[in-house]
């Protein structure tokens, strides 16, 4: 067993910024309007009816105090500075080279409505990256407007609406079919787009049966939305037959390629028959996640669907790059402008730094590393692999269950996640809803983490499971080495206690105090 780190997180006991400062303190000054301006427009041109009378209750601190405060907060964020085998999110190294490139004014200080002549560099990068994704997927056109994987799923539902409207079948094609283990964003976006969501159940082999799919498909089916492999690490070997069955009723097929890491360079969505797919650039393609965006769900589709995509798309005319806005069949915009451009540049940089050989190697490593992890985890008593009937080797991640340990000790996946941070290990991903697997956890090693990192991670888990048996209170009350103690959950559903702003907090605190005094 490796030596476990004697870790303690930074603990600054940092006040909320609203509590800092002093009346009149300043962190940023602006010049007064020049004399000629004041002379021309007067002292305060805001119409009397809309002039602000109150002084917003904001902190009044120095520039240094703002810097120190937020540096403290960054230090009290574990981020992925431990070992983060956060499954379903494919934690990768986020290159500083590309990060710094996008901080240059050639990206940072560029406006999307500038004339394309002044945007040839960024358009070239987007065009080239479109080509890279086309090669990886077999699709004919990509667009980067969606602000994340869920937004790309939403894009698919909007494209499907435009496609069926163009065929006069919008009122008839009302249903979207997906699997109960598909990422929540697929059914949720389809429902928001106005489709009826039909979920298929899983069977013993870990995926829904073709029979169930066929029972769900009809002339009412607008589209199916699938991921493969799933978060259990199970690959649906009937996916070709699935696509064919959907095609047989005329439905569109969308491949949610969130779990692309294990099959990069091995599968082509188009060759499998899909009409459209999406890639998460902030996941598989090395752009940072930033705690939840800015992100990009790159949406790609066949030439047949391309006219319905959101506009604009980047095109090349001769040796010039242009933005093609004139797309009369387009589903309309999913989001303003052309996407989170810096993230697209970072993803392009990742793909170039990896190259075809690097991408294929990364995919190989991620599957082998997960199987190495499975091999070691299987030896720990108290946990079991999801879908135990599926004995084949899993793909790039595996969902596990702590149910045996939980029933034995009362310590479950939440408690262990909290405790892992005490060893400097990033808390794990459990599972999306619904929890089909009880007390789930879902590690994913990917290509970034070393074998030594994986070993450390497993050794920490083994140690905590031992603690759960010998001293469950230690685990139940964890964490103990973090910036704060365990957060109590009672406020989150209670309107008299929840407080989404400091002003709400102060108001409720005072109310509670007044009630206590009364």
């Amino acid at each position, binding site marked *: 067993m490796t030596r476990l780190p004697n870790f303690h*997180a930074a603990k600054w006991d*940092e006040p*909320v910024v*609203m509590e800092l400062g002093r009346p009149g303190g300043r962190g940023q000054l*602006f010049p007064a309007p020049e004399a*000629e*301006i004041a002379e021309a427009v007067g002292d305060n041109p805001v119409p009397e*009816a*809309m002039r602000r009378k109150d*002084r*917003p209750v904001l902190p009044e601190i120095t*520039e240094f105090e703002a810097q120190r405060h937020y540096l403290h907060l*960054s230090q009290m*964020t*574990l981020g992925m500075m431990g070992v983060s085998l*956060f499954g379903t999110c494919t934690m990768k190294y986020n290159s500083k080279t590309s990060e710094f490139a996008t901080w240059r004014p*050639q*990206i*940072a200080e*560029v*406006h999307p*409505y500038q*004339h394309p002549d*002044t945007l040839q*560099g*960024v358009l070239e990068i987007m065009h080239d990256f479109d080509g890279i994704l086309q090669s990886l997927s077999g699709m004919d056109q990509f667009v980067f407007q969606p*602000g994340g994987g869920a937004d790309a799923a939403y894009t698919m539902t909007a494209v499907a609406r435009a496609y069926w*409207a163009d065929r006069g079948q919008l*009122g008839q094609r009302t249903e979207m079919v997906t699997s109960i283990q598909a990422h929540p964003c697929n059914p949720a976006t389809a429902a928001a787009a106005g489709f009826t*969501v039909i979920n298929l159940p899983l069977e013993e082999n870990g995926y829904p049966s073709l029979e169930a799919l066929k029972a769900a498909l009809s002339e009412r089916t607008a589209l199916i939305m699938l991921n493969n492999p799933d978060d259990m690490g199970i690959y649906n070997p009937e996916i*070709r037959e699935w696509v064919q069955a959907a095609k047989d009723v005329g439905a569109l097929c969308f491949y949610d390629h969130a779990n692309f890491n294990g099959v990069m360079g091995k599968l082509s969505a188009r060759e*499998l028959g899909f009409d459209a797919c999406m890639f998460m650039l902030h996941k598989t393609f090395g752009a940072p996640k*930033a*705690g*939840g965006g*800015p992100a990009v769900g790159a949406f790609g589709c066949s030439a047949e669907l391309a006219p319905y995509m959101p506009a604009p798309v980047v095109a090349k005319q001769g040796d010039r790059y242009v933005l093609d806005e004139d797309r009369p069949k387009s589903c309309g*915009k*999913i*989001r*303003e402008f*052309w996407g*989170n*451009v810096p993230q697209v540049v970072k993803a392009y940089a990742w793909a170039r730094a*990896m*190259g*075809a050989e*690097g991408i294929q*190697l990364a995919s190989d490593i991620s599957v082998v590393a997960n199987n190495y992890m499975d*091999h070691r985890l299987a030896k720990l008593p108290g946990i079991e692999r999801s879908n135990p009937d599926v004995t084949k080797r899993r793909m790039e991640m595996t969902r596990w269950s702590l149910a045996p340990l939980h029933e034995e000790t009362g310590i479950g996946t939440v408690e262990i996640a909290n405790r892992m*941070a005490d060893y400097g290990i*990033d808390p794990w991903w459990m599972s999306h809803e619904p929890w089909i697997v009880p007390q789930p956890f879902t590690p994913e090693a990917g*290509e*970034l983490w070393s074998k030594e990192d994986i070993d450390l991670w497993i050794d920490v888990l083994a140690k905590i499971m031992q603690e759960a048996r010998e001293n469950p209170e230690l685990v139940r009350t964890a964490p103990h080495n973090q910036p704060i*103690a*365990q957060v109590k959950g009672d*406020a*989150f559903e209670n309107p008299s206690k929840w407080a*989404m*702003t400091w002003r*709400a907090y102060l108001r409720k605190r005072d109310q509670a105090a007044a009630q206590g005094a009364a």
Partner: protein
Amino acid sequence: MTGPTRAHPWMANSAPGMLEAMLAEIGAANLAEVLEQIPQDHFRKTPLNLPPQLASEMELKRDLLGKLRKNATCEENLSFLGAGVWQHHVPAIVDEIVGRTEFATNVWGSYQSDHGRNQAWFEFSSQLGALLNLDVVQLPVYSWGCAIGHAIRMAARKTGRNKVLLARLSDPERLSVIRTYCQPQEMDGAIEIVLVEPDAATGRLDLADLRGKLGPDVAAVYFENPAYLGTIETEAAQIARLTRAAGAETIVGVDPISLGVMTAPGDYGADIVTGPVQPLGVHMNCGGGVGGFIASRDEPEYVHQYNGFLVSVAETVQPGQLGFGLACPHQNSYGQREHGNDWTGNSTYLWAIAGAVYMSLLGPDGFAEVGRLIISRARYAAKLLAEVPGVRVHWPDTTFKEFVVNFDETGLSVAEINDRLRARGIFGGKDLSGEGLGLGQSALWCVTEVHSAADLRRAAQTLSEVLK
């Protein structure tokens, strides 16, 4: 599987022998055995066709910078582009903080291991709430247009009604997004969009038309303050009264950088407030800096309609200590799949941190100063441009940082004028001529705190030169 000749700097297990060691440990002879789940005929037949690998940082940097150099920037040129993305000053401290690797690369841990980030998120909502005079602020969604779309859907769920009134003079970019969120009408749950005419003299909403269109089927009225074309809506309180009287929700869009000098929407009857986060310390990023906030009063019937992350302060098991976590997490699509409110996912949360730092740097006096500086410079710019022969400014003295400049009398199109300006290092305002707003050859010019009086004089001078 092709063994690497040398390790890749981003892959630890690409070091020679590592893959083989793991394969040996799991008892697999080769990679094909590990991929046993995938049927042979699923493997791709077309070989990858990617540009050559740039494995060294030096080569990669050279490629990136070589391409990016072909862009021209608003730093070297004098830009008057706005309309959803605006050039504002970004304090250096903001860049330092959002560039911190812990903030830039984190995903999701526990409330304890994410404590610093969650506090920064809460401080974004708290400070924005202070500017808006509202108690609930959700973490930003993808963009302002998306925020408006969600806000309208919140109102439709809350009221059980399916129609929304919007200004005819709306940004087509945002309006297109709103239509995506509400339409098409054939879909179950669609929300009908009805446009309210402008008052021709001011560009503001025509209240008589609004009254006529309000009714028991209207879920919400949405208006912006300042609006797309820069106009300040002085009748905001009256609009909110009319809307409330019809049993509908008042949704307002505001520019947060105006709130040091303009009345907080919470003080004129707004029920739900949206706005862009980019003005609060985020670079334009070629449009990749946008995000949109949603805020409201602290009443459960509003709180339970939010689609995304509501960060609440919470006690910890240690008396007196505060932490943070998500309020009402069940109501979003992570908790409820298709049963949740709309959907959520990765969004633009890094910009919440940018906004938190930005607002803490400015404080109440900074917001008052920057607001006054922007409106003063923009009004001055409008005056200077209006003095150029052939140039007219629509609705002068009613706007905040953007205003409509009309070139009909010059006989030139906006495109031609902007081409000539660009040749002289000036990016003219956004061309409105194709937007169907009935404004002729007009452009939307944007002036902010970054434009000095000298810049504005240069713009007016150059414009008069290119119009000769």
